[in-house]
């Protein structure tokens, strides 16, 4: 079916403003396929079913809108954690600021380098999971990313990584438009923790493709940057083998537009996937979590926990779906999305979906929206807590369920400190 004119015009204008990077034959082919996909589905429009709550216009324009750079004297996120740091400034790899890319049991390369090699394992992953993730729901911005990504990191994990790999995205140019594409391949029994943080650019399009082989483990903790005017569209695509584990947690504070999509495919029996998020928004903050979990193997577990605290006109969106295919018997699927609206202007829009074709499953979802419980607030105040502190405590306890999804206590601690600081800053 031909695209509506409106869509094809927007798509063509965006494509015209981009240049496809050079590379080996396989990389070129993958990029051209992705371009075809993009041209077939077209860039998103607010009348698309999965964009009904988030207006994608600013993500579609040929140029990124200006976004002020936010300078802060706070300690860097994950600062206390022993890590292998890889720095991108406005989407450009910064070798001087980054650590040496060597880590026992892990092969790390820049995408730019990998894409030049005629024979490379990345060939079997680049754009592969993204392409699989285009049905049944189209993700045009991810296809655009595969076609035009300028750089990224490719990681192959063969053993137990001693330190987390940490991607740090700095934002320095007020009109930067970054497109990064990362690949992670966790081999059988291997284990990696990936950290991501920073605002990255004025407009950031990020794709992370993660293949976890049998019995492999992948942990992911992400903090999305403080620069309020930045816009981001991120995608995680993952495919999980037998008895493998995938866990991802995202903390978002500020950001005029953030769309985080996570597409999980459980293809091996007994695999586990957890995805969680905590978001705090004030003012013209718009945060959208769109998750699609496909169960295609026996006895897998999936869990989605999303919490949002919103005030002063902020908007939270959650679109989560669990699809249980016919062979996926004994599935345990859980999904919860909750919003705490701190004042009357905030809004929360949710679409928690289940689509189930197997009978021996336990699937449930819950979604609640409300304000702070006055009784609880009264109780804390009667114990002598000032109103602000009492409120912050209740907000933190509301977010706790999402924070508990992080396995590493040091990281949980780091996240909690950030949240406390945000709450203290935003007290009235």
């Amino acid at each position, binding site marked *: 079916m031909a695209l509506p004119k409106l869509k094809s015009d927007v798509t063509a204008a965006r494509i015209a403003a981009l240049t496809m990077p050079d590379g080996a034959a396989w990389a070129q082919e993958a990029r051209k396929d992705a371009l075809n996909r993009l041209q077939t589905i077209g860039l998103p429009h607010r009348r698309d079913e999965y964009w009904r709550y988030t207006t994608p216009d600013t993500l579609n324009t040929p140029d990124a809108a200006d976004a002020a750079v936010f300078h802060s004297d706070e300690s860097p996120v994950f600062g206390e954690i022993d890590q292998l740091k890889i720095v991108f400034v406005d989407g450009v790899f910064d070798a001087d600021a980054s650590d040496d890319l060597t880590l026992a049991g892990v092969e790390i390369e820049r995408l730019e380098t990998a894409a030049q090699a005629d024979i490379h394992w990345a060939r079997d992953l680049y754009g592969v999971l993204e392409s699989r993730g285009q049905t049944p729901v189209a993700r045009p911005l991810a296809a655009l990313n595969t076609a035009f990504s300028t750089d990224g990191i490719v990681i192959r994990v063969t053993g137990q990584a001693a330190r987390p790999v940490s991607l740090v995205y700095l934002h320095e140019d007020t009109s930067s438009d970054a497109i990064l594409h990362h690949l992670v391949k966790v081999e059988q029994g291997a284990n990696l923790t990936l950290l991501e943080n920073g605002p990255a650019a004025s407009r950031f399009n990020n794709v992370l493709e993660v293949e976890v082989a049998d019995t492999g483990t992948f942990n992911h903790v992400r903090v999305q940057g403080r620069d309020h005017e930045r816009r981001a569209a991120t995608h995680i695509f993952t495919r999980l083998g037998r008895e493998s584990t995938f866990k991802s947690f995202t903390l978002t504070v500020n950001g005029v537009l953030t769309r985080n999509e996570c597409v999980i495919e459980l293809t091996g029996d007994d695999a586990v996937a957890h995805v969680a998020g905590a978001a705090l928004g004030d003012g013209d903050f718009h945060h959208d979590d769109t998750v699609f979990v496909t169960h295609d193997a026996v006895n897998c577990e999936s869990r989605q926990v999303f919490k949002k605290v919103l005030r002063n006109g902020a908007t939270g969106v959650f679109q989560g779906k669990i699809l249980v295919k016919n062979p996926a018997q004994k599935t345990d699927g859980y999904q919860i999305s909750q919003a705490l609206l701190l004042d009357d202007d905030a809004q929360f*829009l949710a*679409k928690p979906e289940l689509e189930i074709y197997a009978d021996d499953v*336990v699937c449930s*979802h819950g*979604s*609640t929206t409300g304000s702070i419980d006055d009784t609880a607030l009264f109780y804390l105040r009667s114990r002598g807590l000032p109103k602000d502190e009492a409120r912050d405590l209740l907000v933190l306890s509301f977010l706790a369920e999402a924070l508990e999804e992080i396995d590493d206590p040091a990281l949980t601690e780091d996240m909690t400190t950030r949240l406390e600081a945000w709450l203290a800053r935003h007290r009235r």
Partner: protein
Amino acid sequence: MTAFDVDVKEGVDQETVDAVKSLSGTYKHGWSTDIEMDYAPKGLNEDIVRLISEKNNEPQWMLDWRLAAFARWQQMEEPEWAMVHYPKIDFQDQYYYARPKSMAEKPKSLDDVDPKLLETYKKLGIPLKEQMILAGVEGAENADENRKVAVDAVFDSVSVGTTFQAELKKAGVIFCSISDAIQDHPELVRKYLGSVVPQSDNFYATLNSAVFSDGSFVYVPPGVRCPMELSTYFRINAENTGQFERTLIICDKEAYVSYLEGCTAPMRDTIQLHAAVVELVLLDDAEIKYSTVQNWFPGDDEGKGGIYNFVTKRADCRGDRSKVMWTQVETGSAVTWKYPSCILRGDDSQGEFYSIAIANNYQQADTGTKMVHLGKNTKSRIVSKGISAGKAQNTYRGLVSMHPKAKNSRNFTQCDSLLIGDKCGAHTVPYIEVRNNSSRVEHEATTSKVDDDQLFYCRSRGMDEEEAVALVVNGFCKEVLQALPMEFAMEAQQLVAISLEGSVG
């Protein structure tokens, strides 16, 4: 399945007993009555719309209204977002008007009605002329006033008779076919028709606006509690006919009415189209209970034939403190597309939706509700139970929307799905939109299969497998069955068992 024994109270009509008994079989309503029919030519165009209007002897404003709808419909596209798949409907291959010949002149009383028609209704188990007293529930010594049910029956396109007219008149309640209402109460019809579901609301509602043939009209004046339950029975008899009925219920200030709706159709291996519109208007302090038992022919075991049921139902709680309650038991139809909705406009108004949707064999159901909270302190409650068996697909699709001005509003939603067999599907697609913080919205959904332990227990007590499943499923649906008026609750309970026949083993 064992025969269903009814504990008969004195004074209960044998006909009623048989009707209840007859429910314990497979699709019992699969016969058709051989009645001479008066058809309009096949297909749909402006002339057909004019013809329908003319046949009903309608005034010019009504015809204009229909034509406007038709013009709009021609520009609309059939919606495809629902999780149902069926071959494209050829809208030109349908009859849009069929009327039993003997009805060309409206009968003065039921005595004038073709005996064959009356026989049809007997078969349907509706004792048109009798009080409908059911057996053995509640300590009803004698049939009291509340057990009376006034019935309006719609056969193919035409309303054939409405009972208890005199008694209703005494109370001031108007209950008649919509075609009569257009003649006799044009001021009410003009004021309210299309005010809840506008002409161009959606594809099927617009089609209905253009070609609706008949339906029921109810007006309950201020302060009146309708002395009996009102009921409409819809029957599609003729082959290849679409049925497009339009129901309009207006409940004035402080009035109350309980309305029941039942539907059946013969077994045919071609599909039949049913696109109804129901509009409810509630003024201050009014209350409407609207209950549906939908048992249209669902198609045979191979998925051949059946009714396509595309219905738009909406209640507008205009008045403060008004209350509407939708209860539905959806067991029939090959394809169902139905979302009874509540617009909670008045402050403190309430909307409730209780639904059981059962899909077996090749049935597909995409059903749910919309609760649109506009007024302050509005409350809504959704309890939906979906049961899938065989190769059926069952989807709950719903919207809960809290507008910025709907302060202190409350919603609770629970939708549970039960899967029987591993070739069926159960889906949940809720939309939740909260735009103020003084409201609370809670949504819960679960999907599970029939519990083996419960089945084992029932079987160890000597039940066969089908009975055991029926019992467990009835337990699963209990919350909704309890919301039904008593007469319907019994029928519904039986229907639940019947619809699942053949789904085990």
